[in-house]
């Protein structure tokens, strides 16, 4: 296992270095963001899910290569193609690492959204389409990429994918793709009517999903929807056009990916405060890394629609938090299954605390980040 972990780590570093060398100065920050996301997945993989099989390692590294390739591409077609490839491999990992389930439903496999995504981006190649339709297809594709896991949520044992590296990989891929698209290839019509209604439309969609989550019995399936909504949140923040919100979206991406990996998968134990804190942090409750990002991303805006969207997002998050109203500890003692690496959990705890404490920089951090980004990116 150690050998496999070493190979994976070396592979990740080698790919990152190569991409960084090949990248122009405007694309270098994207390589860094990608490294932070994928490196975080590997680093916080306390259950050793990735090194468990060689195919996991190969597909993980290939997905990383594709995502980096996507953010280094010069044309939108090439970007979409690489992005779709990364999503396809992610869905492959979902199927490969899933527990057994019965029946067959095209709507119960993550391959279906990957294929739908591919269809949507292929349709964009048709030159006769007006730019509005083209943009609509892009948005539909990005929404599909955010809600990939929604397709597998109703089969048995779907809860096993929660907190898995596949889920984090999906968030990383869709988040990076959304951010890059909004930063580089977003057309001008996105900020004009009627497309600016998406500042409200996307949060409404997320709200409906969160209301649907109320009906889900298992908290793990609910958490799947939470992180699907989180991906859409990243897209919405990047779409809004304001620079501080864009940086918050970057933070949301990293925070979301890391939080998925840092939350443990055992039942809640009232005696283990550290694990309980990490478990609750995965819902974005106050005192968590995700909550800090929510505060940053829902900052004041001059756009009326963005303000309305922020309010709807808050409501959507609250509906997830309301699930805590039914939370209860089990009286029977459940032994901790799976050997978790001690230093992984301690580090996860420290990182989450540090992330939570970033809320102190609510006035100064956006300016600092803007300065760093401006130095890294050629305008």
């Amino acid at each position: 296992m150690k050998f496999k972990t070493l190979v994976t780590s070396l592979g990740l570093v080698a790919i990152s270095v190569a991409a960084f060398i090949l990248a122009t100065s405007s694309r270098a920050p994207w390589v860094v963001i990608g490294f932070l996301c994928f490196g975080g997945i590997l680093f916080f993989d306390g259950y050793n899910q990735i090194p468990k099989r060689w195919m996991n390692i190969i597909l993980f590294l290939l997905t990383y290569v594709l995502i980096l390739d996507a953010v280094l591409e010069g044309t939108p077609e090439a970007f979409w193609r690489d992005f779709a490839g990364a999503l396809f491999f992610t869905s492959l990992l979902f199927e490969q690492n899933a527990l057994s389930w019965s029946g067959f439903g095209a709507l119960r496999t993550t391959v279906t959204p990957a294929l739908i995504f591919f269809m949507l981006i292929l349709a964009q190649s048709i030159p006769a389409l007006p730019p509005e339709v083209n943009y609509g297809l892009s948005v539909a594709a990005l929404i599909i990429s955010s809600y990939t896991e929604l397709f597998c949520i109703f089969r048995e044992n779907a809860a096993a994918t929660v907190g898995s590296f596949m889920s984090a990989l999906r968030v990383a891929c869709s988040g990076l793709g959304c951010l890059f698209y909004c930063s580089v290839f977003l057309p001008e019509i996105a900020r004009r009517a009627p497309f600016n209604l998406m500042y409200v439309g996307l949060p409404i969609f997320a709200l409906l999903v969160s209301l649907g989550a109320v009906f889900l019995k298992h908290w793990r399936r609910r958490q799947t929807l939470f992180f699907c909504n989180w991906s859409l949140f990243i897209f919405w923040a990047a779409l809004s056009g304001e620079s501080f919100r864009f940086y918050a979206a970057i933070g949301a991406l990293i925070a979301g990916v890391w939080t998925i990996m840092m939350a443990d998968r055992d039942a809640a134990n009232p005696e283990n405060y550290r694990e309980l804190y990490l478990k609750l942090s995965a819902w974005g409750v106050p005192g968590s890394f995700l909550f800090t990002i929510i505060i940053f991303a829902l900052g004041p805006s001059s756009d009326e629609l963005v303000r309305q969207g922020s309010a709807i997002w808050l409501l959507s998050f609250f509906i997830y938090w309301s699930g805590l109203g039914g939370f209860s500890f089990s009286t029977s003692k459940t032994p901790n299954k799976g050997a978790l690496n001690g230093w992984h959990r301690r580090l996860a705890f420290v990182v989450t605390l540090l992330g939570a404490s970033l809320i102190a920089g609510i006035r100064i951090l956006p300016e600092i980040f803007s300065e760093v980004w401006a130095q890294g990116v050629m305008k």
Partner: protein
Amino acid sequence: MGSYQLLIPQCTLLLGIFILALFEIVDRQFHHRQGWIIQTIALVLAFIQQLLLYRLPSSLFVIGGMILDGTTQIFSLCVLLLSILIQGNRHTEKYSSRSQTAILTLGVTFFALFAIQSNRIIFSVISILGMIWLAHGALASETKLKEQTNLIYSGIIRGIVFLVIGVTLCILCLNVFGESQMDEIQRVIVRGHIRQIPIFAIEVFILFLGALVLGTPPFEGLLGKARNHSSWSLSLGLTGIFAIVGTNIFVRWGLLVFTRPAIGVLELEPLTSWNILNVIRVIAVTGLVLTPLFAILNKNMRGSFLFFILNPFVQALFALSFGQREILGAAIAQVVVAVIIIGLLMSSIQALEFSPTSSLKEWVALGRRDMLACLSIILALSSAAGLTPFYGSLLLQKTLSINSSFGIVLLFNIVLSGFYVGRLLTLAFHRNAGESSESPITRVQKIWFAVQFILLIFMGIFWQPLYKYGAFSIRQFFGEV
């Protein structure tokens, strides 16, 4: 430059056949190991020689009926590469110890090269006839004794049918153009003064033959049932070789003869009033719909794979039918990728020891028993479907950018192909495998899978060299730029 240098690879193959026959005659028994080595050496040597021939000037027409330009070269290399992959996978094949199989498969490759490199239609027809008979013989040699007679009979009939149509075509060409040499035929058409009706008949024959050899549905191919009970490597490999030859017919006999570069734009225009490009497109469209559909409906694994490996060829044919320079190059390069796909498919299915009569039931939970081989198959099929990040997706993007109403059929092809791949992928990891036995795959096989898989991925991610190679190969169509 003499014409005989072009025959060096063919001579090497012929030499290989003779040595194999000699060994059997002299020793009175066939040593599997010796035969395999000789056959492999012959194929590899021929491949290298063919590769070195590429250093010659690209526009090389030889009086006497041989041709070696960019597309011919690329198709020849594909045939040889596929033959090497077939040979590599036959290393542990139960029936590979038969001398007949070795000689006949080498013969198929020999005739395939002639079929591609012939400048005269009659020579290509005879070569393809040789391919049909030898292929049937090779496939029959791997089946049970009681079925061999039927298969040989089937091969003879199919060969004769093809021969009749081919000879009719040649007679028509000679009557109409006074020539059966392809470049000369084009010059006659350009000069004009030819009635359109006979040209129409000739075009129909050519396209019919092309579709028949390629095997795109509803033209199920010239091999038919013969592939049902033989080894995986031969059945898939020979299907691939015939598909390459069929594509060559469309390109060489169809596009190169009946079209020319339009003035001012980088695309082909028809030389006759009957637009051959449109008819090729109709054939391709039918194939785009029926190929994945038949693969989905056929629950027998052999049958569905045999249909589905034609998908990249059909997509390439569809792209070729638009006659645009940029797409043409990508389509030709797609044939190279198709060869790698077939190779990966052959090796991984072989490693899983699937029987020829395996159905989808045996596929369920296969991924949990043997993940590497199963994923290799799935990824090969994904590449055949044209999914990202494989090369086929690039071709699909470029084809859709042409702005034709036929693009919707391509999207329909993706839906069906995607469903096919998705179904296999899902079922492979569906249930628990029960008691897992030790994987039959050796370490060498695993490395071989990995190499092919990485090659396939690299062709998709770093597609520029392959695309440029394809574009370079069709330079002759548009003249020197």
